[in-house]
């Protein structure tokens, strides 16, 4: 078990280094964008004196490395800093944006796991037959449709033509849970592509495993078909699927901007988009930290689960 522990420690250290690198990169890129928060705030009134005054009020006249150092020092004390544009704490931005994002991610995940695995197993069981072809072609087709196109289509048909569901979550931003109908379309759009990729992975893994000598051997021993499928073949298919799942969760938690914009859900993606447009560097950096940590933790978790499922494969890190 000590091997595993040192693996986790190494991965965590690496994760910290990766997060720092992401934050530095994001800072450098934001600084490299034309204009700063003062220019963005001045908008169509770019009076140079006013821009200079805003810049001074925001402390933007100080060198970039000083601002970065100050911010990093604050971060060590758990202080994410304050927004340049509004003066409100960055933590507030993250907390406010995280609620809707987390809600959407949880719902999507709760449906994604049974659906993705179910369809994959179903297709694998009927490999080469009608059900398999049907599942495979539908998932491929849906996978080929970009989220925004699917979103627009679903809104048009289900919300505007048939009026079964509300077209957006506009105005429900503060209390999405109270309006579950508004969540149906966003979750459907979020589900569409992950379900396809997950089910295809599961199908491929199961088909491989079912064709393997050990499965054939188990069948020869008279082990019931269901047990061969679910106790022997499925875990084999799970390892790659779990890693795919981690990437999907990461994608969901970092805010899917297309879905947020289309359905007016004020999640983390929206916060990030606005912050970049406003050159609100502290908010962008705060989000970079959150996204970096999420990516590291999720991928580590996935590696550990994969390790449990297929110990023989070993862990590469």
């Amino acid at each position, binding site marked *: 078990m000590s091997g595993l522990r040192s693996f986790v420690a190494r991965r965590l250290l690496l994760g910290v280094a990766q997060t720092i690198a992401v934050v530095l990169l994001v800072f450098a890129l934001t600084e490299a*964008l034309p204009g700063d928060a003062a220019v963005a705030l001045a908008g169509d009134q770019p009076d140079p004196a006013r821009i200079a005054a805003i810049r001074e009020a925001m402390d933007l006249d100080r060198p970039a490395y000083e601002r970065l150092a100050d911010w990093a020092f604050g971060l060590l004390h758990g202080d994410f800093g304050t927004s340049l544009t509004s003066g409100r704490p960055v933590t507030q931005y993250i907390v406010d944006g995280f609620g809707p994002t987390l809600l959407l991610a949880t719902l999507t995940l709760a449906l994604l796991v049974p659906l993705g695995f179910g369809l994959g197993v179903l297709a694998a069981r009927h490999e080469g037959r009608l059900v398999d072809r049907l599942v495979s072609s539908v998932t491929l087709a849906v996978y080929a449709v970009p989220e925004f196109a699917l979103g627009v289509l679903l809104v048009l048909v289900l919300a505007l033509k048939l009026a079964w569901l509300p077209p957006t979550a506009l105005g429900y931003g503060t209390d999405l849970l109270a309006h579950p109908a508004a969540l149906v379309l966003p979750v459907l759009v979020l589900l569409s592509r992950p379900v396809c990729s997950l089910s295809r992975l599961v199908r491929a893994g199961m088909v491989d495993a079912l064709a393997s000598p050990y499965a054939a051997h188990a069948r020869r021993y008279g082990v019931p078909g269901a047990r061969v499928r679910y106790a022997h073949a499925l875990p084999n298919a799970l390892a790659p699927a779990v890693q795919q799942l981690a990437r999907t969760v990461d994608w969901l938690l970092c805010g899917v901007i297309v879905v947020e914009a289309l*359905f007016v859900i004020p999640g983390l993606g929206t916060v990030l988009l606005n912050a970049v447009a406003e050159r609100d560097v502290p908010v962008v950096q705060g989000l970079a930290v959150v996204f970096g940590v999420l990516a590291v933790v999720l991928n580590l978790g996935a590696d550990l689960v994969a390790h449990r499922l297929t110990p023989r494969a070993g862990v590469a890190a």
Partner: protein
Amino acid sequence: MNDERFPGLRRRGFLAATSGAAALALVGCGGGTDDSTAGGSGTPKRGGRLRAAFAGGGASETLDPHLANLFADVARAKALFDKLADYGADLSAQPRLAEKWESNKTLNRWQVTLRQATFHDGKPVTAKDVLYSYRRIADPKQAFRAKASLEPIDLDASRATGERSIEFVLKRPTAEFPNVLAAFGAYIVPENATEFDKKPIGSGPFRFVSFAPGRSAVFRRYDDHWDGAPLLDEIEFVVANEESARVNALLGGQVEYAHELNPTTARAHEGKGQIDIVRLRNSAMQAFCMKTDRAPFDDKRVREAFFLIADRQELVDGALSGAGEVGNDLFGKGYEYYAADLPQRAQDLDKARSLLKKAGAEKLKVTLDTSAVAAGFTEAAGIFRDQAAKAGVTIDVKMGSKDSYWSDILDNGTLSCYRSGAMPIEAHLSQRLLTDSTTNATKWQHKDFDALYQQAQATRDKTERAAVYERMQRRLYAEGGFLIWGFADWIIGTARTVKGVETKAPANTLDWARFDKVWLA
């Protein structure tokens, strides 16, 4: 509006004029006979909650009216707060919290009397509140947008002369001082107010209920508003940055008012009976901005050639999808003091070519800066490139960052796409076309032009002043740096139940995004 009456007649004349305005406003909200309101038939009905969707500023939004920057900010600010004056449909200043204003002979001291109005906490609006608000805006440590507009006022010398009267001392004669009172963002807040996001107190038609930045703001009717209580019980402002989301929410009955729609959306739904489309004419000036201090545009023949290259109708049809009207290289079509008598310019490629030849600018190559910062910019640039090619001018269209566009084009480049919201012609001149203007993007710096502006500001008689403005506009028409090719409509969608939405209200004027006279049928 009534700044030059004889002393003996002043009060009377003023009251007559204001009650006239009040009567107009009544017709406006009654709407039965006046065609300036959309779907305005039937008797106004009280009650109900209207939800209005705007593009907004996300989680950084604030209710501090002096920080108002976006249309959504202004819409919220004007619901909660009042200004001393605001702009009418022709961008002339109309009295609001100010009941009247009068100047001394030299136009550098103005006596403003406030009407009897109360803040939402019941306290009266006093001269002290006004002075506090203006001093807050002008604070040199802050960078409030309206600071530049209030610049003519000497706030140290200005003082309260009574509970509801203020004497404004100006740094120089300013005939259009009422425009200053109506300036973008010059809202009156209670004395010593600094915190606006928790429970802001204003004197506007709606009281604060709740606010979640980037999501929603709910306000309730203020029954004691000086202009009469609003008809609606509540108004909720919600934020949706995607135009498609605003339209979908409107079509799906999630909002009753959607601000800023695309012309194509408007065409798709106009007259279909599902929603009403309201077009606010003359809302956004569309132009190309030529830097007159550098080659090739330092030669006025080149500028004139460019005026003649533009096929304005094609630009309006292509870049604005037809939602607008052609411009005549002058700002403020339909506004007070607009020089409407100048002949409409049309494309004349032969003349343009010969002008370029005379200027030695054949085979001219110019870079046109544009950006996706405003609707129609990139389309306009592409269309103009093709039009210029017909006159032998090669235009290279360069896309810039939309977040820093206005700052980038202020001093750099030679030719750029430009637009402006509604403001009085006088404000356009002073902010953009004087030697010391803060945003002089055409680099139009002429001492004699500055002198004309000062002359206008020192002229009491309105007709005489109009004549000076006309001289200035003639000069700009002949050789200015703004190729103003059109004026875009501002498009709003409303549910069919929404009545009393004013249509003669360019964006930024009093009646635009005004909800105290709107009702739900």
